[in-house]
């Protein structure tokens, strides 16, 4: 039992409000940045910058608001495997679509 107790006190990490305030501020600042960036004329880079900021914001939410930074290896692996599968599905669909016409020009 005592082994479990130790285990649980390590697992049940309570994230402090200070971190939540910090992350919420960072998310709001990033929102302002992405809107400001959309008014700049960057050509194809507009989409890249906007998506990069979105990925960064989503990572902050997953790691801190959703506690993955403080979670067990099982959960970290689950989230990682899910994202990997997601990227395979989207990436393969897009690569098929983009390369359909190759060779016919």
């Amino acid at each position: 039992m005592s082994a479990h107790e130790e285990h649980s006190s390590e697992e049940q990490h309570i994230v402090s409000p200070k971190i939540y305030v910090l992350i919420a501020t960072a998310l709001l600042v990033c929102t302002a940045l992405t809107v400001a960036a959309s008014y700049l004329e960057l050509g194809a880079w507009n989409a890249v910058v906007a998506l990069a900021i979105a990925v960064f914001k989503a990572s902050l939410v997953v790691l801190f608001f959703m506690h993955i930074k403080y979670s067990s290896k099982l959960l970290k692996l689950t989230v990682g495997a899910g994202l990997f599968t997601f990227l395979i599905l989207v990436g393969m669909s897009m690569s098929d679509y983009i390369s359909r016409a190759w060779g016919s020009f």
Partner: protein
Amino acid sequence: MDSPTVALHDSSHSEHPSYQRHHFVSMAQQKDSASFGMWLFLLTEIMFFGGMFTAYLIYRNWYYPAFVAGSHTLSIVLGTTNTAVLITSSFTMAMGVWCAETRRRGGLILSLILTLVLGLAFLGIKSVEYHEKWVQHHVPGLRFDAMTFVHPKAEPGQPVEPGLPLDMAQHTEVYFSLYFAMTGMHALHMIIGMGLLIYMLIRAIRGAYDNGNIAFIENFGLYWHFVDIVWIFLFPLLYLISRHQ
């Protein structure tokens, strides 16, 4: 675990809270299983929204001028406000989870109310945007007029948009179909979430979470943050990335 507020189920067993199910070795294992199950559900949700995101990317490549013109009809001010509202509601929900973990009933009730109010504000702003689409004949299937993109009217304070050829203008309907499908599914998730918020609020006022049995609140927190993440991607894709083309 040894705190006196925890109701003990049976002293002949090893000591554990009454809400620990008997097939779990420890509370830690029960909590891990609960979050693991919730995450698996959220991953299926990611795949579900991912299908729509992929459709959006492919059609945007296909009917690029139509998607640019469609995107220009959205209000950046309303979109940005809604993003800030939703991020703040994620923050208040995170605070709610913290209050539940540290057994602050008052703080939990306040956090749930604030999250609910911010969720309502989001849907209110969203409905203003939907109404605008209705007025402008930009609702596919119900009230749609492609001619608004062939001969765009000058908006006050905005440069006049160049008109699209008729066949491309008709493809703006694809943009608006995806716009309503994606923001609509997102809004549906918010409405379901607000129903759950009201349920948790009633339970919290009755003191149901005072004994530390807060798996429901923690899992709802994961759900609410997931809905936030979906919007974090919807906002740039629908509103921002076509500003300059």
